[in-house]
């Protein structure tokens, strides 16, 4: 069973998002996603200052066998990126909800978070996927 923290919201494209008190949010990929990718060898992140709409492509995670796009779960401006991933992309595999965060985004519209999936809804999504 995949670890899916209940306090986070999830996109169907397997990103998680955690809203902070200051109106910014951390974004990463779920355990299901990092497990499917295999050992990451490279993470292409957006640049600080980049502005995205929800579901825009914001970067790429790359393993030996695959490369997957990372999508913005909500609209906003990038205020920080996880520089540690440049030399240690495996942090995403080791601690995808903590040290393996990808970027921090200033959320334009908090209500967009309501359109994302809860932990239960995301769990149901990936169960369906596994059945295919």
């Amino acid at each position, binding site marked *: 069973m995949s670890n899916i923290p209940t306090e986070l919201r999830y996109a169907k494209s397997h990103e998680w998002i955690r809203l902070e008190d200051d109106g910014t949010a951390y974004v990463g990929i779920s355990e299901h996603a990092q497990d499917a990718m295999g050992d990451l060898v490279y993470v*292409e992140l957006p640049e600080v200052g980049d502005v995205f709409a929800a579901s825009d492509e914001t970067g790429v995670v790359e*393993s*030996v066998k*695959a*490369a997957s*796009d990372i999508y913005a779960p909500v609209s906003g401006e990038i205020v920080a990126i996880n520089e540690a991933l440049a030399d240690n992309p495996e942090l995403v595999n080791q601690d995808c909800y903590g040290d393996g965060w990808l970027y921090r985004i200033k959320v334009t519209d908090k209500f967009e978070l309501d359109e994302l999936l809860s932990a239960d809804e995301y769990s149901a999504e990936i169960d369906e996927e596994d059945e295919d």
Partner: protein
Amino acid sequence: MPYIPHTPDDVQSMLSAIGVASIEDLFDEIPAHLKVAALDKLPDGLSEMEVTARMAARAKQDEGAVCFIGAGAYEHHIPAAVWEIATRGEYYTAYTPYQAEASQGTLQTIYEYQSMIAHLTAMDVSNASVYDGASGLAEAVLMALRANRKSKSYRVLMPTAVHPLYRRAAHDIVSNQGVSIEEVTFCQQRGITAVEALDAYAGEDYAALVIAQPNFFGSLEDVDALTDWAHSNNMLVIAVVNPTSLALLKPPGEWGEKGADIVVGEGQPLGVPLSSGGPYFGFMCCKQQHVRQMPGRIIGRTVDLDGKTGFALTLQAREQHIRRSKATSNICTNQGLAVTAATIYMSLLGADGLESVAGHCHANTNLLADKLCAIAGVKRRFSAVTFHEVVIELPKDASEVLAALAAKNILGGYSLAAGYGMSNAMLVCATEVRTVEEIEQYAAALAEVLA
């Protein structure tokens, strides 16, 4: 792994093993209306004897004349050992030899090739080659657009002193992808791209500047000034270079303060015969920081579980079989045989040998230019220093002169009428294979034609 075709008995026993009546039956899920019937518009096949005769006749068309044409493909001496080794079955018949378990020899050869080219160009990484210099330039343009994240304009600057066919190939490949190529004209007097002419573009958003060294006219550009100008205007530098010249000239990795970002060029001079136009190969190199945007195969060196050195494809997440439509290119192979020959050529000549070839080419072309310009009315068209080609201006139409020379079995040069509207000018080249006698015969013939 040798290739041994199946006999009808082999086929029959395999079909029996899987319980299928015929090979056709294995395709029965394809709807009948989609299957190709007879190809009526194709003529009947020819026998090996007929094909051989036909190809021999074609090859004869290009034989017999003494060649003073460069313009992107150069006649160099190829030591016999090069193709003696390259045509060995292990190299010659290898098909897409990227499977690490079965192709360590080929993979090592390609790795050595990459190492030599990276060293020659003073760049960090080389790929396993692309199809040719011209398409390599197109790939470099697309790569620069991906790599230069500061640029949003989808435009590049392209001097018209770059080979006309390279510019056309680049345009044909990139223009359908929304990329625009803006041309910068050369200084008419010097035959190079003046840095002052670039001032009109300063502060504008272009992803890259292309710099050819030598340029199409054989002239040497001020690569340091051009490189620094591009970098100070947030443009990447794409260098288009001649590999023989790199034995003498400053390599692109050392241009200006920071060096070129992407390097491409035609590898034909390195042991590949003219062959009536191909196959040739394009080399492509870049700085380490851009490697993930570089197309083409890349062979890496690593160790296996027992700690023994081995070679394998690396950084495959750039390529089609993983990235599909987002891959760095639709190219998923390399010019393996040509690259093998080039690697052997470079190994045999070594740095000293390559320098000697380059020096002789430079000297021979200067001798040719001097002899031709001693004829009344004939002169060098541009003032800049040249490597092994020079533009000669004639007192009459160059195409007529070249036709008259061809009738005397001398391929005198390449007319600049089509590419530049310079109808009295021709680009001439004398490599190390041209003798003093041949050069003197050319001068004598030209004097006769112009008399």
